[in-house]
């Protein structure tokens, strides 16, 4: 009897607890203007200075406005700045090193205070705080004194303060900001549209330290004062974000009352949640694109658009056998990228033959045509490389991170080389961090890595990856002609000349094939029919249309 009663009371407790839980959390019936999306990741930080991941950007751009922004076509538009600084409007000095930016006077923070030049000064100096170690600070090292302050972790507080004061950013008056650069950087305005340069409230940081951008125990965000179209009211970590409309917003107020970002990491589960109307948008698991397109219910809900991302099989050109250009070219001709995109990916994505993706300045559709799929040419090049019919070829190893569709593409590459050139490829599928470490240390032989745009300009695509010794030049590619062109292009203030230089530079790289360009990503998501005015761009993160949620509305 006694046992039974314990059991019964246990059951009773469980049931009551559940009843309480249910009644406490019953969601209000879905009112009109609520959009529920899936961020699919837990963020490290949503402090604009410190953020570095796309999912962090997705949150930050809902709640902050910077000096400039990208429009739907990825062209720059002024936001808090009155106009885009140019030499013509005296925003940029003739030598390209001093920026004088006039701010709008009607921009307010979410608590009603005015946004002033000092908020930008504080943010841009804080970006280089050596104790914060902001990950995107290196993008802004052209600002006078930035790098010196950033590297001053071991200095005394007085020295740090002096270095901080020496940073070339100041408020001329409440609504005029001056930024001085060490060298001319024609793409600097693009950096003023990126999140690390967004304004930050000094009083919040001074009073609450790092907690200004963190939720309290209940998940509320009391100190996260922002100046964008939405306000983040809640961040329940590992669970969800809640945004509401910013009633103090200075621009056109958004139509949505509320946005919820969930954190469902499994793509199949997200699809199930979407079909159960718990999400208004979701991606489709890789490989299910065709059936989604064939599905009469789902096919009208498909949203697809090119993403500014290129994937490539990257060689370590510093070590044999891949220091042999002819071998690299032979392999490039042996891979049927069309079959991969058309059959394996069901037409989602586009074959890439060069590095800069379509939809961006610097894209050149004519590049790389000589390295399209051609088995005879591949065999010929292989013979020229010194390996007729693959004889004498050492074991080829290919390293790849075991994430997403990577195992599939590895298996595809392996079979392509086997069928077309009778080469046995050893695939080393690695855990993602282990792969990154190997890749960063340039200990890989042949890897697979993509590159997504931080900002839509060749500046972000070519010098970083192909200049001798550059930070992201992991292939070890080194070409004096390229270096000379790039050094010039980085400083060229005439945009037409600049883009021409980059075009020539890219042609040099493609001819050398330090990477076999494979494909450009295409984002393929489902969006409920009642979600209207979703505008997507090639730089959107995990959420399609995250840059312009301020325009979205619901209509059932």
């Amino acid at each position, binding site marked *: 009897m006694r046992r039974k009663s314990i059991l019964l009371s246990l059951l009773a407790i469980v049931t009551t607890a559940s009843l309480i839980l249910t009644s406490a959390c019953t969601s209000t019936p879905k009112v009109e203007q609520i959009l529920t999306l899936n961020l699919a990741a837990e963020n490290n930080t949503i402090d604009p200075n410190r953020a570095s991941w796309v999912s962090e950007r997705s949150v930050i751009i809902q709640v902050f406005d910077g000096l400039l922004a990208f429009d739907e076509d990825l062209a720059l538009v002024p936001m808090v700045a009155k106009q885009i600084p140019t030499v013509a409007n005296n925003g940029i000095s003739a030598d390209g090193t001093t920026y004088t930016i006039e701010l709008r006077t009607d921009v307010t923070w979410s608590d009603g205070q005015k946004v002033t030049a000092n908020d930008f000064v504080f943010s841009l100096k804080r970006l280089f705080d050596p104790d914060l170690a902001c990950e995107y600070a290196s993008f802004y090292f052209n600002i006078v004194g930035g790098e010196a302050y950033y590297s001053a972790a071991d200095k005394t507080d007085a020295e740090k303060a002096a270095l901080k004061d020496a940073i070339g950013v100041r408020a001329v008056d409440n609504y005029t900001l001056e930024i001085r650069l060490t060298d001319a950087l024609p793409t600097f305005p693009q950096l003023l549209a990126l999140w690390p340069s967004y304004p930050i409230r000094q009083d919040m940081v001074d009073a609450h330290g790092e907690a200004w951008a963190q939720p309290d125990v209940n998940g509320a965000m009391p100190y996260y004062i922002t100046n964008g179209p939405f306000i983040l009211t809640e961040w329940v970590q590992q669970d969800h974000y809640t945004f509401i409309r910013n009633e103090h917003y200075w621009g056109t107020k958004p139509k949505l009352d509320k946005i919820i970002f969930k954190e469902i990491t499994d*793509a*199949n589960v997200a*699809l*199930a949640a979407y079909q159960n109307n718990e999400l208004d948008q979701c991606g489709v*698991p*890789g*490989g*299910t694109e*065709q*059936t*989604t397109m064939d599905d009469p219910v789902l096919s009208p809900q498909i949203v697809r658009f090119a993403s500014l991302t290129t994937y490539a099989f990257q060689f370590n050109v510093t070590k044999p056998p891949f220091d042999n250009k002819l071998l690299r070219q032979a392999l490039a001709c042996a891979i*049927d990228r069309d*079959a991969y995109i058309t*059959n*394996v990916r069901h037409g989602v994505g586009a074959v890439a033959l060069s590095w800069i993706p379509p939809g961006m300045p610097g894209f050149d559709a004519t590049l790389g045509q000589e390295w399209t799929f051609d088995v005879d040419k591949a065999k010929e090049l292989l013979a020229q490389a010194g390996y007729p019919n693959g004889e004498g070829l050492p074991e080829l190893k290919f390293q790849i991170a*075991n*994430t997403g569709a990577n*195992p*599939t593409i*590895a*298996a*595809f590459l*392996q*079979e392509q080389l*086997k069928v077309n050139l009778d080469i046995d490829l050893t*695939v*080393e*599928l*690695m*855990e*993602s961090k*282990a792969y990154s470490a190997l890749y960063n240390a340039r200990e890989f032989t042949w890897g697979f890595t993509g590159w997504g745009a931080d900002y839509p300009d060749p500046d972000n695509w070519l010098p970083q990856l192909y200049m001798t010794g550059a930070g992201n030049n992991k292939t070890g590619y080194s070409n004096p002609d390229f270096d000379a062109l790039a050094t010039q292009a980085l400083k060229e203030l005439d945009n037409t000349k600049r883009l021409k230089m980059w075009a020539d530079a890219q042609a040099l790289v493609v001819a050398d094939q330090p990477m076999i360009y494979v494909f450009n990503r295409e984002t393929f998501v489902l969006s409920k029919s009642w979600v209207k005015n979703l505008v997507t761009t090639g730089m959107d993160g995990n959420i399609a249309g995250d840059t312009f949620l301020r325009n979205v509305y619901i209509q059932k």
Partner: protein
Amino acid sequence: MAIVSKAQTVPVRPHHSLWGDAFIRLRRNYFAMGGLAFILILALMAIFAPLITPYTFAEQHLDQILESPSWQHPMGTDQLGRDTFARLLYGARTSLMVGIFTQFIVLCIGLPIGAISGYAGGRTDNYIMRFVDVMYAFPDILLIILLRSVLGGSIYMIFLAIGLVAWVNIARLVRGQIMSLKSRDFVSAAKTMGGTGNYITWRHLLPNSLGPVIVSVTFNIPRAIFTEAALSYIGIGVKPPTPSWGAMIQDGFNLIFSKPYMLLFPAIALALLMLAFTFLGDGLRDALDPRLRH
């Protein structure tokens, strides 16, 4: 203990008769025999896979991608146009190997350590058991992931990683068995006849404690296969193009909304294998335990 006093009345018989009895009892258990038959047939099919299917596990037919089951491809094709049935057969090799080799590693480590600990007793036993405590305090899956990352990509390293984590239970089991057997008459008899420690352990104690070990191994084989499936889900399973049931289930999992059979075939195969080992294990336990005779 009651168990000991009961067992003392059982006359010590030659080994083969213990095993012979067990086999007779096992044969009467249809579920266990069914399980055994399934495992053997599967193993044979895996070994002779090239004779059963015209396809290899790696060959891709890019014009026959994600086809539904047909006469040509009885279980359809996958994302790269590979024959699912062929992959399932070759995958059985991987999965059975994972199950068997991990248990082999487990036995190689756990059996001697448990035997030494149990027989030696005293301080040696104490030290070994404290080490076992430490191993026990690690969460299995985290330790496997760490080891897997340290040891690197090859399939043998999967065996090793799982084996290095799973030996603890066998060690404990063997130690317990040996300690309870040590006090029995036939051991004392061997001792009085001048048998040395090693001789007694290897000739008398280990063989007599093997029953529960075999049962435990039978149960742990499917667990290891399961662990491999979990590792595939986490993204650190076997490398391509080698198929394993875990990797296939993971592939199929991503296609569940569009091609459910891609998940169902390997999942059903794995479930049947699990059931087979479970029934065999239960049957062996009943058969090897003289107290359960009826």
